[in-house]
């Protein structure tokens, strides 16, 4: 059986993005299919945050190709914003508003389709907001506290609640586990898994392979503003010396099939960059 190829969620080819005069992204080649969970790794300054921000259409791509969710970022990068959710280092929260008000403000701007009455729309938003806050464990009193007085972990949870409430097609998470306690990390992992199983695509930047290895289909290494290596989680776990769990194996196999041929010169630096990955979206071979 052969399904028609779906366009990839993220398609970057030789993308260069500038921050001032500095090339934050210096020729990125990346293809992410819909529904995939991809982890970006790399040293500080490698360009992970810039790549996520570029996917959100926040920084302009000055050359190369960049198409996210079907929107060409080079011609109009504002169109894609409604459909993506970015969880940055610092949550985009207003200090004087409570967590609930913050989530509400972020969600209200979503235009729900259909001619529904204002009251029912407002009620729908309220429901979404309280569900999201409950999900992240901020129901009750923390929801009514001004964001400025929340702890860093709680702020991160509130920012996650924004994402959950908005339910975007593409999740962009910038080091989501950093600064979180064990319980919050578990929550983060669960949320990512739920989002992925609901069909969203997830791009995660992380320094902590132990947290992400159970979530990801693929690991992409960024270095010097470029993608230098791609590995499936099976390979990564082999490197880490852990016995591959059945689950991850299954996922690894699926992603290998889904992404087609990938010429991988393992261990060879520099050669990978030159190769054109013949990935044309998810060609699902069932």
């Amino acid at each position, binding site marked *: 059986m052969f399904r028609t190829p779906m366009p990839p969620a993220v398609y970057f080819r030789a993308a260069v993005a500038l921050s001032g005069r500095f090339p934050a992204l210096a020729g990125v080649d990346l293809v992410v299919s819909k529904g995939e969970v991809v982890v970006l790794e790399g040293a500080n300054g490698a360009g992970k945050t810039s790549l996520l921000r570029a996917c*959100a259409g*926040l920084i302009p791509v000055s050359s190369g190709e960049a198409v996210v969710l079907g929107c060409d970022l080079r011609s109009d990068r*504002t169109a894609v914003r*409604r459909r993506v959710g970015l969880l940055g*280092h610092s949550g*985009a*929260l207003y200090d004087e508003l409570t967590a609930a008000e913050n989530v509400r403000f972020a969600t209200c701007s979503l235009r729900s389709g259909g001619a529904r009455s204002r009251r029912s729309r407002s009620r729908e938003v309220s429901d979404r907001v309280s569900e999201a806050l409950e999900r992240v464990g901020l129901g009750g009193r923390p929801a009514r506290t001004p964001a400025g007085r929340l702890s860093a972990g709680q702020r991160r949870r509130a920012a996650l609640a924004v994402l959950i409430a908005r339910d975007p097609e593409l999740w962009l998470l910038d080091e989501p586990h950093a600064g979180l306690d064990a319980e919050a990390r578990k929550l983060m992992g669960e949320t990512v898994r739920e989002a992925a199983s609901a069909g969203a695509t997830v791009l995660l930047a992380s320094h902590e392979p132990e947290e992400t290895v159970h979530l990801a289909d693929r690991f992409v290494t960024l270095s010097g503003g470029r993608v230098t290596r791609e590995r499936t989680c099976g390979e990564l776990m082999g490197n880490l010396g852990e016995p591959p769990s059945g689950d991850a194996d299954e996922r690894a196999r699926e992603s290998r099939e889904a992404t087609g041929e990938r010429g991988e010169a393992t261990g060879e630096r520099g050669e990978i960059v030159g190769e054109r990955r013949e990935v044309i979206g998810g060609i699902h071979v069932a």
Partner: protein
Amino acid sequence: MWRDAGLVAGKDLRIELRSRVVSTQVAPFAVLVLVLFAIALGPDPKPLLQAAPGLFWVSVLFASLVASQRSFAVESSEGARDGLRLWGLDPAGVFLGKVTALCTELLAIGLLLGAGIVLLYGARIHSYGELVVAAVAGIVGLASAGTLYGAMVSGLRVRETLLPLLLLPVVAPVALGGTRAWQGALASTQASSPGPWLQLLIIFAAVYLALGVVIFGPLQEAS
């Protein structure tokens, strides 16, 4: 667009209500400017009375400078600036919302300053209608230009020094028109017909409101 404007205006005003920065810092600053002028122009009340309309408008101008800065300082806290763009709000709506919130704050300050020149400078009002129209039109124009320039410099480190240089020359006509219009409305100064000046203020406000709606979107992308 209108819905987003309402959202943003509500958000800005709610933040102001909670943080009270405009009421506890900007308003006293505006009154302080009036006091400083009084110190500069001498204890004799006549020159103060003569200059009262002009001093009112200069104080309003300075207050609008500070308030515009504040309006965008709120957005820079911890990545909130990204939020307005990320959440897909209509930029024209964001502009109108911010202008509305800024207008409300400036009108409150204007009321305070008006009372100030009546009490401190001994001015007497003989035509409330013109006074109010001039004040409203002038402040709408100030808020529009202030929001535009505030957005332009919001991401920059040098914003505190750049904003006055950019904003004040552009709103000089408001100071001019407002002063002349108020001169007509205050009993104690030479009366000159305020008609053309009111027109000037209204035209200025309309032009900058329209310009802002059109250009705020592209401008936001520049951060």
